[in-house]
Each structure stands twice: as structure tokens, then as C-alpha cells.
């Protein structure tokens, strides 16, 4: 063995102890550095970025200057003043949207060029690989955006002597950064989950269209100069940034990247996977029963083993939903103290059996029949499930929090109007709520899990398989617990709650 060879083996050995943060960081930087250099060597990427970051912002500052002069002639300088920050936002957004192509082909482009496999065969971990590629895709667009903003501001300073207030500049930089990170990290997720650059470009519409719509909303708010709302939007974008990066890291898997060759939708395979997760083990005593009674063993297995197992799997989501409910109760209380209702608007002493029978005349309330209440509740929870799928679970949580906030708003209002809030709650909510609330919490938790699976699939499962298992769990829980509880709650709400209200409050 030569001296060099021995040395290389030692180096390999020491590289194995690469749990060290310094070494991991070195590998990460190596990857980022290479990718950025490679990007900057491609004139087809560099030339448009240079134009968008120099010529376009310079043009924008000239336009702003002309517009300002023009509107001032008609005695309405405020439009011009609002135009300047709006264009500031636009010059930051344009280079990012254009540079999205870099992020979109991060993984899938390398796969198409066959350069990915050698990289996957290095000791880089999945996280290092994903973060390195994401940072490399993120840094050039963000730098381009900052450069565009700088050129625009220099132009404005030269034309008009205008300098931005520090808070506005900070807001624009934060908004540009958070929006850029959302778009790029979304594009990297797309790139790591598709099999061709063409498919990735098609899916990019799901990033560009919402981002463009958001820019329009931000522009409108900018014209109203309501900067506090924009800070909230920046905070929202920051949360989405964290979700997307976390999701990307979680679902990135070098095996999936190479193992999948075509984006084929295999319905039969999906059905088999779903069915596999939908099945449960019947209670063993069922096997000893005569044929006609074996369903008892199946039901026994469902309620004693399968449902508890599902609830255990969903415990994080359950905790999240309960915490959300507590927060919504607090929000209801805060709003009630801030916006107090006039005394005449809540006259509990005038509640009668007619009050309940007249409820359907209030357009948005369901008919007070068992069927009406049950179908309304089931519909609402199914809608929450559907929304959860498209919002990583968040909208399902919001949909449950909203009525809870309203309930606690009224409870707090009742207290402020001199009624006993505990009695109000116990009479109006508790009788059917004892069943309806657990059903809603469980259903929402399963819906949250269904949406969140995209961000964090269960260990050892692909996103698709994890999602199908979450769906199978949701269907089982819906049929076995949620609908029966809601049906009972509806009976109580229609036949028992009104009687209790009248008995308690009159």
C-alpha cells in the first residue's frame, strides 16, 4: 500500500466521523458553492437576471419619477407617493419569479442530465443534499432581488432625491425575502418530487399564480399604506417558509429520486395500498362465533384495537386541535371585551320555544331538525377535511376554531350583560356539545393529520403511502366514531337542548 493510498484510507476513515458539525458544514458549503458557480456560468440565466436587476429597476425609478411629476400637476401627489413603494416591491419580486427556473430544475434537472447519481453516491446525507441544493437555488434570486431594489433606490435618489423610510425598507426586504424563500423552497420541493423538468415547470404554476396574486393583494394594501397588515403577511410567509423547508427535508429521499422513473397514476396500486391500511384485525373471539355473528368480532376489533391505535397515531394532531380550541376561546373572549354588544341584542329572558323554531329563518343557520343539524355538521367536517388537504391541515383547524371563538364570544357577552356565563354555556352548548365537540375535535385532528402528512410522512413511508394511511384512518374514525356521535348530538340539540335552555334561563 502506497503512502498516499494509506493516507486516503485514513482520510476516508476520519471523514466517517462526519457527525462533526464543522465537517457537515464544509460539505454543505462545498455543494452550495459549486451550484452557485455553475448557475453563474450559464449566460442564459445570468443575462436576464442582470437585465432585471439593473435595466428594469432603473426604468422603474424613471417611471416613478415621471408618474410623480405627472400626478403632482393634478394636485394629487399621494398616488405618486404610493407608487414608489409599490414599484420597490415589484423590482424585488421580478428577479425571483424569473430565477425560479434555477430552483425548479435543482434535482430533476440534474437527474435528467445524469449528474445526480454520482452525487447521491457520496457521503452527503439527505438533509445536507436538500439544504445545500435549496440554499444554492435561493441565494442567486435573493441577491438579484436585493440588487434590483438597490438599483431602483439609487435611481430614485438620483432622479428625485427620495430615500425610503427605514421601516418601509425593512418591510420590503422582509417581504421580498420571505416571498422569495416561499417560491424557491416550493420550487425545490416540486423539483425533488417530479420526474422531468417539463413536469416541474408545469407544476410551477401552483407557485407563481398564488405568489402573483399575493403581490397584487400586497400592492392594494401598499396603496392604502396599511403597513401593519403587510407585516402580518410577512409573518404568515415566514411560517409558510418554515413549513415548506421542513416539508422538503422530510419528504426528500434519495431513493425516491432515483427509484421513480415516470409520474404514472396507478389507481389499482393506490387502491391496494388504501385497502391494506383500511383493514384491521378482527377480535379473535369473532372467529368462534357462527357465520352470521362474525361481524361482532370485526366491530370488536375496530373499537377495541384499531380506533385506539388510530387515536394514538393522531395524538400530536389532537393536542394541536385542543390547543387551537383554547386559543379560539381566548380570541372570542378578547373580542367580546373589545366589541361589547348593546344590551338589547342579547335578551335571554325572551327566549322561548318559538325562538328555536324560528331559527331556520336566519339564512345561514341549518333547519333545527335532526337531519338538518347532522347533515350540516357532517358537511362542515368534510369541508374541513377537503380544505386540510390543500392547506397542510391548517384550514381544518381554523374552521373549527372559528365557531368556538364565536361561542366564547357570546359566552363572554352574556357575562358582560349580567347573565351567568357558566349557565349560558351549560344550557346552550353543553348538552349536545358533550358529544359534538369530541366528534369535531377527533375529525379535525384526523383532517389535520391528513394535510400535515404532506409535510411529514410517517417514518419509512412515502408521502403517498402516508397520505393513504391517514385517509384510511380518517374514513374509519369518521364512520365508527364521528358520525354516530354527531347523530346523537343532533338528536340532543334538537330535542333536549331547547328544553334545557328554556328551563334554565326562564
Amino acid at each position, binding site marked *: 500500500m502506497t503512502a498516499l493510498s494509506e493516507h*486516503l484510507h485514513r482520510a*476516508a476513515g476520519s471523514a466517517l466521523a462526519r457527525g462533526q458539525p464543522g*465537517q457537515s458544514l464544509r*460539505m454543505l458549503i462545498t455543494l452550495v458553492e459549486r451550484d452557485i458557480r455553475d448557475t453563474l456560468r450559464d449566460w442564459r440565466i445570468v443575462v436576464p437576471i442582470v437585465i432585471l436587476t439593473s435595466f428594469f429597476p432603473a426604468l422603474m425609478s424613471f417611471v416613478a419619477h415621471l408618474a410623480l411629476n405627472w400626478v403632482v400637476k393634478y394636485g394629487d401627489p399621494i398616488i405618486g407617493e404610493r407608487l414608489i413603494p409599490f414599484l420597490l416591491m415589484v423590482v424585488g419580486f421580478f428577479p425571483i419569479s424569473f430565477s425560479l427556473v434555477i430552483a425548479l430544475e435543482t434535482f430533476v434537472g440534474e437527474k435528467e442530465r*445524469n449528474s445526480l447519481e454520482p452525487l*447521491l*453516491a*457520496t*457521503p452527503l446525507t439527505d438533509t445536507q443534499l436538500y439544504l445545500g441544493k435549496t440554499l444554492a437555488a435561493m441565494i442567486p434570486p435573493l441577491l438579484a432581488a436585493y440588487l434590483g431594489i438597490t438599483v431602483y433606490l439609487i435611481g430614485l435618489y438620483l432622479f428625485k432625491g427620495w430615500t425610503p423610510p427605514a421601516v418601509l425598507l425593512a418591510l420590503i426586504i422582509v417581504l421580498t425575502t420571505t416571498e422569495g424563500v416561499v417560491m424557491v423552497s416550493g420550487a425545490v420541493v416540486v423539483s425533488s418530487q417530479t420526474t422531468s423538468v417539463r413536469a416541474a415547470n408545469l407544476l410551477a404554476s401552483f407557485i407563481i399564480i398564488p405568489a402573483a396574486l399575493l403581490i397584487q393583494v400586497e400592492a392594494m394594501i401598499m396603496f392604502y399604506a396599511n403597513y401593519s397588515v403587510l407585516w402580518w403577511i410577512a409573518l404568515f410567509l415566514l411560517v409558510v417558509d418554515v413549513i415548506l423547508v421542513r416539508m422538503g427535508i422530510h419528504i426528500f429521499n434519495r431513493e425516491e429520486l432515483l427509484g421513480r422513473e415516470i409520474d404514472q397514476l396507478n389507481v389499482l396500486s393506490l387502491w*391496494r395500498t388504501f385497502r391494506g391500511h383500511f383493514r384491521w384485525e378482527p377480535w379473535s373471539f369473532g372467529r368462534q362465533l357462527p357465520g352470521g355473528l362474525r361481524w361482532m368480532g370485526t366491530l370488536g376489533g375496530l373499537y377495541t384495537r384499531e380506533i385506539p391505535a388510530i387515536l394514538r397515531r393522531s395524538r400530536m394532531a389532537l393536542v394541536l386541535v385542543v390547543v387551537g380550541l383554547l386559543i379560539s376561546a381566548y380570541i372570542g373572549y378578547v373580542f367580546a371585551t373589545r366589541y361589547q354588544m348593546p344590551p338589547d341584542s342579547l335578551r335571554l329572558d325572551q327566549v322561548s320555544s318559538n325562538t328555536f323554531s324560528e331559527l331556520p329563518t336566519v339564512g345561514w343557520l341549518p333547519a333545527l331538525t335532526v337531519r338538518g343539524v347532522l347533515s350540516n355538521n357532517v358537511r362542515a367536517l368534510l369541508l374541513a377535511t377537503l380544505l386540510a388537504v390543500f392547506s397542510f391541515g391548517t384550514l381544518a383547524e381554523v374552521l373549527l376554531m372559528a365557531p368556538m371563538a364565536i361561542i366564547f364570544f357570546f359566552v363572554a357577552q352574556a357575562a358582560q350583560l349580567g347573565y351567568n356565563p357558566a349557565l349560558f354555556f351549560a344550557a346552550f352548548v353543553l348538552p349536545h356539545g358533550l358529544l359534538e365537540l369530541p366528534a369535531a375535535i377527533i375529525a379535525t385532528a384526523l383532517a389535520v393529520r391528513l394535510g400535515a402528512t404532506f409535510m411529514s410522512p410517517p417514518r419509512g413511508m412515502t408521502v403517498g403511502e402516508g397520505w393513504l394511511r391517514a385517509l384510511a384512518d380518517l374514513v374509519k374514525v369518521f364512520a365508527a366514531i364521528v358520525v354516530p356521535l354527531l347523530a346523537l348530538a343532533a338528536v340532543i340539540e334538537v330535542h333536549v337542548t331547547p328544553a334545557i335552555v328554556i328551563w334554565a334561563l326562564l
Partner: protein
Amino acid sequence: MIELIGLTKRFDGFTAVDGVTLSVAPGEILALLGHNGAGKTTTVRMLAAILRPSSGQAFVAGTNVAERPREVRQRIGLLTENPGLYLRMKGKEYLGFFGRLMGLDADETEVRARELLTQFGMLEAWERRMGTYSKGMRQKMALVRAMLHDPSVLLLDEPTSAMDPRSARLVRDAVLRLRDHRRAIVLCTHNLAEAEVLADRIAIIRRGRIVALGTPAELKKRLLGPPMMELRLAHPLNGAAKLVSELARIEGQGEDWLRYSTPSPQEINPRLLQTLASRAIDVITISEVERSLEDVYLRVVEGQDSQGVNGGTTNHDSSI
């Protein structure tokens, strides 16, 4: 050095590799021979700790690929079918990049890279952008990348499949130069001549299963029967065929030639020559009929196909 025990890989109900069991010793070159889609690349990707086995185990230099994939990736060098170079980079930048990822510092990388480039006769490529390389140079550069950290296991996945004969020859020569008593090499190929030239042992893989395993000579003997000899005479055969049939089995004959098979040519051939000489029959040549690996491969494939046609299941042990 490499050990596979019942290694299996399934993708969405499709079994790409099905219970493969074999081992490769240090200093040995094993060729995984099979047509496209037979499971060669999937096997290599599992050995490179890129794909995780669905079941079974694989050990590379004593390390379990599923349990310690990073360690395995540190110990292997992988050459893929397509070189997959970053064409805008120069050779030295590219090797520097992979050297850093493999834990080498810049000086080590340069010394090692120059040594390998010299060995492969392409030191001048060091400063050139890789987009200007020929196909053969690109694959050799990929081979240098795979060898940069002097791996104890080298996995070559179809290294010459997309190449013209000259480039393929260059790469084959390069592979032969990498033979080392400390290194195990696995070569995936559907090129039978290449496997015969490079490999010590051959594993024929079909539908994810190893259907034949051994040295080329062993496989020929096992699958094509005993060696076949060809006897050419100066005159028509006349009674010569009868004399031969007393010693060996005649497989075919013409006017002045015949072919016979015998499990022990070293014993039969001298006796036959003595007999013919004693009868004054003039012999021009007696030589062994060349049998190629292609014959072996076709025999195995046909055997497997007929089992499939007859409704029999393929048993990977049956023809080994």
C-alpha cells in the same frame, strides 16, 4: 469484501431484485451479466447505499448498507452508465469538488487526481472544461472521480454501454489497470465479450434472480457440457469416425473432419492420436472448439424461457 444475502428490492408491487445471494472477494472482478431491466443497476444502487433493500442484507467491506449507508458510500466508488459530469466545470474543479465531498483536502485530491489521470493518459484534461471531452474521456474522468478516494469497492454500472468500440476499449483497459488485490470490483454489463475479458467470475442475472454463477470456464463446462474437440484429417474420414467413437462422443462430422466431446481431453487426445498414427491416418490438426460466453448466456436464457413456457417457476439455484 462484498456479501449479499437474499437481497431483494421491490417497487410498488414489482420485484426488481429477488433474493440475490453472492459474495465478491478482495482482488476479484465479478460481472453481473443480464439484459436491460434484469436488476443489475438496482443491485448496484443497493450496494452503493443509494437504494434501501426491501429485504435481505448487503455488506460492503463489512458494513451493512441499510444500517450505515454513509459509511458504505465513503468506501465505494460508483461509475454510472452515463458519466454525469458537470460539463461547465474544468476537470480539476470537478475532481476538487468530489474530493472535498469525500473528505480529502485540496492537496490530497490534486496528487491523487494527477496520478489517476496520468494512469489513464489524460493529464492534459486537468485544465480543460469537461464539455470539450470526447465520450471516452468523459467516462474515464468519471472513473477517476469514482477512484479518487481509493475505494476498496468499485461498482461499475454499464461503463461502456453507450460508447463506440474505441472508447469502450479505452475504458476497459482503464478498468483492468484498476485491478488490485485489495479491491473488489463489480461490473454490470450486457456486453458478453466485455464480461469475458474483464471478469474473474460471472453472475447471470435474470428477472432479478441470479440464474448462473461461476468462472467463465466453469459456466461453459456446466452449461455447454464437456469440451469439444475438432479433428481434421489429410484424407476423407473412412474408418476414423469409428475409432473416435470408441473413445469419445461424436457431435458432428464432415468429409475430412469431425467433432467430438470428452470430459478428459488431456487423456483421450494422446490416445486418439496414437491410435490414428498406428493406422497410418494423417492428422492435420486436433484443436478445442472455441465456445463463447454468449453460448452460455443463450443457453441459460433459453433454459429459463422454456421453464417459463412450461409453467415452471424459475429457481435461481437450479442452474447454478
